[in-house]
């Protein structure tokens, strides 16, 4: 093979600095800049959490997660055990209330109600509920439950469930809507009843997305403080009872200890913050593994 030298000289394939390339460079720079800008606060948070928190937690390693909280907050020493249990109780209770209700509600909205007046009303209400500040939810449960039955982890669970419900409904309905109609048709054409179509085809197809949506709601609920201040009360000892007596939670402890003027309390707040983040992260990880198992099975 031999190339004609004249022709090669005539064709110039080298990049030229045109208006289009300039625009491309400018926009790419902006996008990289935006990415860097949003990662800076993220890394700053993780860094400060880890640098402060790890020291506190490691100083009294397993004790920090198991020991009770010092009654006098200026006293130094470990202990977030009751708060971890309280967070698990409140968030777990809220999940048990909000996730089934929310998923069933979303199934109604997308598979049955569709564009009916009632469905539209429910959808609108769920949207409005998303915008209600968490402290108002706390106040609502305070009046409805706590004033009658006193402080308990269940009151906190109720308030968190109110916060989670619209998120679960919204995310689940979105995921159900993404399941293509031709899959429903395929199942109907095989003589499947509507409930079978939903249970065996629509829900499995939407499951990974539904799990993600629920996790988002759980993670948000685990970090909420305001509604718990009203409903859970304050405790420094373990309280494994869901319905009885005041309890506590990590978020409440972070708030209380961080605003304290004693260095020992502030340290505990850092430890509690790190614990909360790790707890949420572990939860997400476990749910992802379960979701992946499901996906592989299908």
């Amino acid at each position, binding site marked *: 093979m031999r190339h004609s030298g004249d022709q090669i000289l005539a064709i110039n394939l080298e990049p030229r600095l045109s208006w289009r390339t300039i625009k491309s460079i400018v926009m790419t720079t902006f996008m990289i800049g935006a990415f860097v800008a949003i990662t800076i606060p993220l890394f700053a948070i993780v860094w400060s959490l880890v640098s402060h928190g790890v020291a506190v937690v490691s100083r009294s390693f397993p004790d920090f997660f198991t020991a009770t909280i010092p009654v006098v907050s200026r006293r130094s020493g470990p202990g977030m055990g009751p708060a971890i249990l309280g967070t698990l109780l409140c968030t777990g209770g809220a999940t048990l209330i909000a996730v089934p209700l929310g998923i069933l509600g979303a199934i109604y909205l997308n598979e049955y109600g*569709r564009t009916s007046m009632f469905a539209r009303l429910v959808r609108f209400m769920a949207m409005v509920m998303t915008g209600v500040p968490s402290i108002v939810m706390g106040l609502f449960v305070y009046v409805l439950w706590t004033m009658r039955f006193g402080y308990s982890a269940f009151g906190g669970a109720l308030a968190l469930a109110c916060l989670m419900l619209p998120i679960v409904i919204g995310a689940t309905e979105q995921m159900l809507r993404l399941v293509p109609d031709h899959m429903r048709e395929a199942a109907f054409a*095989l*003589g499947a009843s509507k409930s079978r179509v939903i249970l065996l085809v629509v829900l499995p*197809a939407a499951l990974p997305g539904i799990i993600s949506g629920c996790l988002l709601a759980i993670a948000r609920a685990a970090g909420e403080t305001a509604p718990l201040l009203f409903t859970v009360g304050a405790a420094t000892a373990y309280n494994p009872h869901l319905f009885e007596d005041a309890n506590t939670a990590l978020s409440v402890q972070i708030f209380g200890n961080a605003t304290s003027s004693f260095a020992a309390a502030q340290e505990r707040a850092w430890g509690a913050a790190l614990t909360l983040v790790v707890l949420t992260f572990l939860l997400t990880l476990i749910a992802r593994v379960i979701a992946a198992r499901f996906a592989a099975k299908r």
Partner: protein
Amino acid sequence: MQTALVKPTRPSRPGYRLDGQDTMPAATDAPIVFALDTLEVYYGSFRAVRDVSLDIGKNEITAFIGPSGCGKTTVLRCLNRMNDLIPGARVAGTITYHGIDLYGREVSATEVRRRIGMVFQKPNPFPKSIYENIAFGARINGTRERSKLDAVVEKSLRAAALWDEVKDRLHGSALAMSGGQQQRLCIARTIAIEPDVVLMDEPCSALDPIATARIEELMRELKQTYTIVIVTHNMQQAARVSDRTAFFTAEVDPKAERRTGVLVEYDVTSRIFSNPRDERTENYITGRFG
């Protein structure tokens, strides 16, 4: 559940009528499965199809041909009540299935679809394994034992000429198959519920000629066991596989000033393609349409 499809409302009517005359020649004396009488289909207030009267014979392949928008798919979807799923769709006139009014008060659409299966234009396997796709129908009908499910899966895949290609990856995803294999999987899935009729809505339009030929060959085999109704845009396909052909076209509805589908001619396939009685049919099959 099993008693849902009883109660004959009227004896099935022989022949097919257009403009009041019974003109369908008795080319075969196949028993009648479906009898459509002055069928009209509405989507909301829009009349999509009008005046469709024809009979569909047992163990025959009946093809619906015609240009886009002529209502052939709409009519097909009425035969297993898939149109029930579209909000606002309704039917006037009658369709009887073995003499039973398909849209009768006591007929359950779910029971209808267990007997009248459907294969769609785009292959639509479930995002599950090949095995689970086929076993779906058996499972919803209450089969639980693994050995029975295994037998159903093998039998259906063999009937759809797919067994040898997939027997080593039954538990792999159905979505990893080629388009032609996916469509044969959908056919296998449909015949796994042992229906009486298989409806096919342009089953080959997304496939290449080789895959199309395999499906056509399969249809000829399935005809021994099932009654098949196929909608196709491909006139050669109708000519190759079908026993009878119905030609639909879209014409302006005198009532609504909109184009609605009408049945022009229904006859033995060889006659439709060699000696059609209606000028519109001749124009369409010779490519002079529109």
